[in-house]
């Protein structure tokens, strides 16, 4: 039996539409993605990683081509239904409020709750599960302004997990974190993929961590988009093209990027 694609893009062009012609950032992006994968999106600053993730999560329309979630065109999925299939963790910092960690994670249940947003037993179970998976049960009654960057990032991941979607998209979840928390976030996400068969897509600048952890890599360069497993991409020498070679080189033996001396 052929595996169903959880996410698919065909001939996708991303960018911004303007009255005087479109400003496109990347063209001809096509990929297919099956369930239970951890995907890392790599590329230089400003190459369009966020734009791609925003397009995939319907926050901005594609200039051309289509995105399919669960084999359905993104355009024809209602907002509520999409919220049950895909959750996001964004780079933007949430506004300070008096929401507690528990309430924040509970907001992830909104696509399922009634018009008043009342939580039922199942919602409570999912929230507790999310808090435990991410390891923040102990801080669940803290207010969000009392949290450190690392804690807040974990809370946002737990919120996405509570949303109970088969797809989680994270835009640079490890930015602003120390090396300990970076690895912790990667470990949490990896465990999620393993335990829940969810598909996790994250953009990151932690290329070496990504090379160690990801099931699949997406590489974005000036004129190209490549997807594949680490071995496939190494064989095609695609990783060499990720950065200008004057400062950093890919070492195929250690399978890591190294400083070019």
């Amino acid at each position, binding site marked *: 039996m052929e595996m169903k694609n959880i996410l698919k893009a065909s001939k996708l062009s991303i960018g911004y539409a303007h009255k005087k012609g479109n400003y496109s950032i990347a063209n001809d992006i096509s990929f297919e993605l099956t369930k239970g994968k951890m995907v890392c999106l790599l590329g230089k600053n400003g190459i369009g990683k966020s734009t791609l993730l925003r397009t995939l*999560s319907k*926050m901005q329309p594609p200039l051309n081509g289509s995105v399919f979630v669960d084999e359905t065109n993104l355009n024809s999925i*209602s*907002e*509520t*239904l*999409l*919220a*049950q299939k*895909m*959750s*996001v963790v*964004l780079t*933007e910092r*949430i*506004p*300070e*409020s*008096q*929401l507690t960690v528990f*309430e*924040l994670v509970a*907001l*992830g249940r*909104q*696509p399922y*709750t009634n*018009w*008043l*947003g009342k939580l039922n037993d199942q919602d409570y179970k999912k929230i507790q599960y999310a808090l435990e998976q991410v390891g923040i049960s102990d801080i669940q009654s803290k*207010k969000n*302004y009392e949290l450190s960057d690392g804690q807040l990032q974990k809370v946002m991941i737990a919120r996405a997990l509570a*949303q109970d979607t088969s797809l989680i998209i994270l835009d640079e979840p490890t930015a602003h974190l120390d090396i300990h928390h970076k690895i912790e976030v990667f470990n949490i996400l990896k465990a999620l993929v393993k335990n829940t068969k969810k598909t996790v897509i994250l953009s990151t600048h932690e290329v070496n961590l990504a090379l160690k952890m990801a099931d699949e890599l997406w590489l974005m360069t000036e004129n190209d988009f490549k997807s594949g497993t680490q071995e496939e991409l190494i064989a095609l020498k695609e990783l060499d093209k990720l950065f200008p070679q004057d400062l950093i080189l890919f070492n195929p033996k250690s399978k890591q990027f190294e400083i070019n001396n």
Partner: protein
Amino acid sequence: MLILLVLVWFLNINLGSIHIPFKQFVAILLNSPVENESWRYIVLHFRIPKSISAILVGSGLGISGLLMQTLFRNPLAGPFVLGISSGASLGVATLLLGASAIGGVFSSIAVSNWSISIASSLGSFMVLSAVLIAVKRIRNTMSILIIGLMFGSISAAIINVLSYFSSAEELQQFIFWSFGSLGNLSWEELGVFASILFISFLFLILVIKPLNSLLLGENYARSLGINLKQTRYIVLIVTSLITGVITAFSGPIAFIGLAVPHLTKLIFTTSNHRILLPAVAILGAILMLICDSIAQVPTSEYTLPINAVTSLFGAPIVIWLLVRKHKTVL
């Protein structure tokens, strides 16, 4: 809190420039005979309507302040940031100040309570329509805030020009209106007032859930399946309706709308709108009743402008609470 509201309400009705003995006061409420029939008239036709309008104004302004603060995710937003009250002021200014300038048609209309209400409603409705048209073309919520402020300053400028060409009497009339007033409303007017507010409040039940998700920012709210456009429209229309009606009947009452949401959040330490909305309404009503009682200057025959009291009394409380708790949050 509800008990406190009832207590404050009783106190408010009991106090006034004419002293009515407590026993007699209770007798009036129980509809039994009283020593002085004019006392009954004062309580039934003056004090009770006034206290009810205080409750309506307080809860309405509190709620619309909360809505604006959440929608714009800005703790400085208040019910009047959309320029609604400036629009209402412009309407009233045109009626009171423009009468001589335009002459003829306007001056023949007697300046009554109703005509002021209507002028002010028309004014706020004009600004509301302008804001909504702008909203339709604009995606960024923060721009709406700035556009509202701009409409406000345009209205203020026109009022300045009108004032410049007006007589002293007309100016005085306008300034008295801008002091705000809770009295002068008949039972009939109160009925209209209350039913418009009540209908507006009903719509809010629909947006409790979206409002909570807006605490995460618009992008997260959308990712949770919230219809952002619809939420924005409901919140903006309800706020305009509430503030428009309040300004029409009671004048531009300052401060309550900004302060009450903060007080409520500080007291209840929550951001959940299912608790906040009713709490803000009740606390707003309580605060307004207290302010009105102070404005009566008990045992004296003077009545202070309500607008001055709300700020003089309310601002120090908010400052004190913020200094004590160290945190401004949504």
